[in-house]
């Protein structure tokens, strides 16, 4: 069983690499940084050192708002393994105001009250290694 973060959910540590270290370093400081393509302006998700839309390898990181909207969500009630004790919990796609739709959890609320279309705000759930997981609360 993974340790639990302040959200009460498991916080399995990510595996930062040369392309994503900046993203994870920012989360450790409670900030959401995203790469934006210098050529076409596309905000790339998941983070990488290239633009999947135009092929440019030139991207500039910027601090995103942390605001978003629930694009889809589900209350997971039965799940095997290390997440079993965390159920019921909300698995979701959140559409960031900057464009990308990200896999995440909605935390800090009754799971039954989460719905598509709700406004949400980023929270950072620290892992034992330092980087934090990008989760959201109802705004």
């Amino acid at each position, binding site marked *: 069983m993974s340790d639990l973060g302040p959200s009460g*959910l*498991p*916080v*399995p540590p*990510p*595996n*930062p690499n040369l*392309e*994503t270290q900046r993203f994870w370093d920012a989360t450790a400081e409670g900030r959401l940084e995203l790469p934006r393509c210098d050529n076409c302006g*596309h*905000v*790339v*998700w*998941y*983070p*990488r050192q290239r*633009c*999947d*839309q135009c092929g440019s390898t030139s991207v500039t990181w910027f601090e995103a708002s942390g605001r978003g909207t629930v*694009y*889809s*969500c*589900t*209350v*997971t*009630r*039965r*799940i*095997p*393994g290390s*997440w079993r004790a*965390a159920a019921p*919990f909300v*698995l*979701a*796609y959140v559409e960031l105001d900057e*464009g*990308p*739709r*990200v*896999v*995440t*959890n909605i935390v800090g609320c009754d799971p039954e009250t989460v719905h*598509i*279309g709700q406004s949400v705000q980023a929270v950072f759930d620290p892992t034992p290694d330092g980087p934090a*997981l990008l*989760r959201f609360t109802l705004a």
Partner: protein
Amino acid sequence: MTIRGKALIAGVYEHPGRELPDRTLPQIHAEVAAGALADAGLTLADVDAYYSAGDAPGFGALSMVEYLGLDCSYIDDTETGGSAYLVHVQHAAAAIAAGQVNVALITLAGKPRTGGAGPGGSARFSSAPEASFENQFGMSVPGGYALAAARHMHEFGTTSEQLAEVKVAASTHAQHNPDAFLRDVVTVDEVVSSPVISDPLHRLDCCVITDGGGALVLVSEAVAASLDRHCAPVLGTGTSIKHTSGGRIDLTHTGATRSGPLAFAEAGVTPADIDYVSIYDSFTITVLMTLEDLGFCAKGDGGRFVSDGALQSPGGALPFNTDGGGLCNNHPANRGGMTKVVEAVRQLRGEAHAAVQVPDCELALAHGTGGSLATRMGSATLILGRST
């Protein structure tokens, strides 16, 4: 160049076992290989091309060619999860059409029920570039598909009762299959009152977890002419990879929006011409969205389309998965594409169970979905004909 009609499926085999604790994975591969070759009237010595996917142990095709004792000049390890075996059919048909292959063998085997591997299997590659951005949030396989179902309901008004109709049709067929893992006919009420796994998906919206496997044998026209067996010509094929598009995923459609039109165009037919469909049914929502994307109904109308027994055989508007599908019959290795092709060939040969055989079945479609509706998937569509 078209592959239309240049390659034929001469042999199919579905392992009858659903729990196989006393066999190794290579043994199951060997059993299904022998079964499909015997069905075609061929032997291991006739095989010159071998195809395997991520379920093959060790070095994949390289290991299995040796274990099986094959002498191959052509191998293919294309891995797209549960749809891989349909992609293999496309690749084998192309190789046969090009004159590079005469007899192609495709095998699948797995033991998720008794072998300890959980659902999803090798799909959770920790080294994938997306891994740390998707795997940290408790996305089970049903949880991912639930995200797609929830969005489809939100945009189109699809209901749990409509999803349940897919399971009801599959169970109606499975009662006639003595090998089916679940043979009890269920009602819409029973589906929607079964425990919720991830909203809106209930336990009975989910496929079974079974050991087992299957195999296919494809041959050239010249080989087919020498066989005393009805062979199903491959008329059209299509593959597509649908992914998250740099974070702009649309959860309401599948890769079938591209693989389907490719296959229909190659075959020169339309959805209205199809007599029977095998549709990958990892979950009920998979079927509903795939039917829309293949053009059997308008986008968003899948819920209405599958209602009132439309998928039941015989008599429904579009008979599907007459073996009971992954929802009731079999989902060996957590990969349902192989059995989709097997049942389509049974229908074209008139060898489905008499209670579910589509009369005069001349044109069948088989569709596979590998990966996840929630992230990235390999979609493959085949259109098969009846031998003359």
